[in-house]
């Protein structure tokens, strides 16, 4: 007798489960139905690429979405190279890049029928940062290179205390790394002990919690928890970057496939930085607006 009742019970449980599943499916399907009418005016802009340009893109995206409620903008921060790749594959509308496109990427793009058009949205300096307790105030580009290759391994050698230098770099997948590689390393290899971190924020955090560390971040990521070093005697500020005095500076790009159609959302988006609001945003996040130099 008992067996039968348990069987019944399990059957009820099973029915319950099954009906739940079915209900879930039904709800999921129904969700889609009323949408048919509304789809107009909706547009999706997919942005992919550099983590350095990421804050600008995110801020622009939120600002733009607050103006145009029908537009959905997604931002991925997966590295400049990935941005280029996505643009070439047609998987993103706008590619954020903190370096210019490489020849190879251009060639691949043209072959696929994509014409990359660069929009310079802002300027950025790469600041060398150390812990504020570090007495070192200044480095030359050559010294910075020697630190990163491992030839200088102790702060003593650049006028600091006797502490081993903890060398921190951006991950090799970033445009920041490539710019630093080009402007500072000049084709030399970074030492083996270099730690690689995935983003500007992570580097700043590592440096602010590690007394003997040195790292490099975009201008927008400097705050009072870290100390920016003078490089070749120039402090990285908006003015020195804009005037070209600061040696480690670069433009930040957004790439589109061809020049976007005038009046389209994409066009409005990539020209946002030209207007006063866009410049204010760029300034607020800590980059140098293109109109100030």
């Amino acid at each position, binding site marked *: 007798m008992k067996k039968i009742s348990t069987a019944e019970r399990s059957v009820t449980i099973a029915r319950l489960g099954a009906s739940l599943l079915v209900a879930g499916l039904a709800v999921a399907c129904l969700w889609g139905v009323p949408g048919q009418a509304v789809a107009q005016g909706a547009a999706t802009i997919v942005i992919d690429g550099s983590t350095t340009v990421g804050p600008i893109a995110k801020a622009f995206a939120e600002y733009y979405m607050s103006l145009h409620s029908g537009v959905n903008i997604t931002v991925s921060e997966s590295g400049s190279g990935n941005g280029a790749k996505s643009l*070439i594959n047609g998987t993103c509308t706008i590619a954020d890049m903190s370096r210019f496109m490489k020849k*190879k*990427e251009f060639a691949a793009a043209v072959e696929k029928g994509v014409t990359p058009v660069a929009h310079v949205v802002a300027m950025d300096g790469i600041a060398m940062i150390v812990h504020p307790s570090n007495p070192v105030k200044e480095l030359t580009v050559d010294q910075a290179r020697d630190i990163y290759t491992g030839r200088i391994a102790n702060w003593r050698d650049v006028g600091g205390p006797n502490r081993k230098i903890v060398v921190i770099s951006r991950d*090799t997948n970033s445009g920041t790394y490539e710019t630093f590689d080009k402007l500072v390393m000049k084709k030399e*290899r970074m030492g*083996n002990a270099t*730690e690689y971190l*995935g983003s500007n924020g992570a580097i700043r955090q590592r440096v602010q919690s*590690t007394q003997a560390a040195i790292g490099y971040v975009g201008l927008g990521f400097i705050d009072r928890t870290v100390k920016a070093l003078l490089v070749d005697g120039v402090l990285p500020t908006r003015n020195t970057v804009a005037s070209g005095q600061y040696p480690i500076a670069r433009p930040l790009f957004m790439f589109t496939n061809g020049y976007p159609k005038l009046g389209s959302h994409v066009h409005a988006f990539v020209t946002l930085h030209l207007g006063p609001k866009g410049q204010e945003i760029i300034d607020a996040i800590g980059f140098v607006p293109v109109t100030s130099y």
Partner: protein
Amino acid sequence: MSPRALRSELLLSGRASRSNRLVALAGQGTLLLITSCSAIVVLFLFYFIFKDALPFFQLRGIAEFLGSTRWYPSGHPPEFGSLAIFFGTGLVTLGAVLFAVPLGVSAAVCLSDILPFTLRQAVKPMIEMLAAIPSVAYGFFALVVFAPFLQDSGGALLSVVIWVIGIPASVLAMVVTNGWIVSRLGMEARPIMRLLIMMPFGVTAIWVLYHLSASLAELEISSGTNALNVSIILGIMALPTVVSVSEDALQAVGRQLREGSYALGATRAETILKVVIPAADRGILAAIILGIMRVIGETMVVWMASGNAAQIPEPWFNFLQPIRTLTATIAGDMGEADHVTGSARYHVLFAMAFSLLVISFTCNLASEWFVRRAGHKSSGRCP
């Protein structure tokens, strides 16, 4: 209903039964098809990963991949020596195993043979919780809570660990040697002798421990995101696997074996160490292998908290150095690896994924083999 009609209801005509059989066969075929989906997925996995890994070996060769420690994927010219990355994976795996295996196996023994039933019921959900916590949460903990702690007071932590391990160990060693020496002596000198032997031993132990912990306490850890951090967290993540699989293995050893051992006058410790664990050794080995697989395949924790420095630490067992692992490299470097240009840089990541796949496949086969052997063994011994 007439008997005739009833018969026609029950008996199937030849054609009907044939068509029924056909339908059943077709149904079964569909089922097989769907089931083999998982097999197809495995084959596809190997195929697609290998397909994208192969160009790397053609372009750069395997000698560089496994023989060099120079990892400069974006240099001019790029170099893809992944030895240090393989080494990093090995090092954290070793660390995690050193952490998880003793702890996990003794916890499994405790669960299966020592704890009373009610307590066991309380512990099990705990293990399940450990297993359920998402890896990104572990990674977040490692990065945000554990790494700063390790950096600021890692030395103190290590010295505390030394005391926690050292005191019970030395007391145990003391008691054992003491008992051994005293048992060789005559009856009358015992209490005094015991004290005499105990004194220098205890003093030495404390002296050693004190100095060890003092030197550790002064240790300066330059970065909290290092192999030790990751090893400990990965060890904790592997614990549930190790515990539950080896507990199953221990449970599978029959009661008869245990009771036989007790009947011979063995204590519980002796029974477990000399009878139960040897009988379950293959199952425990399988548990360890499964734990290792969990550790090797883990991405988020190592990506967030290992420091990602492609180096072999100096000396090689220096757990306080940052390292880089295969999984973290794949996750982190995919951003720059543009497959459009067919660069070696994209394919090297697939080569790494393929290595991971091969490692996990081998581990899996090994653990299955051990489990099967374990089944034979325990069933063979205790029918």
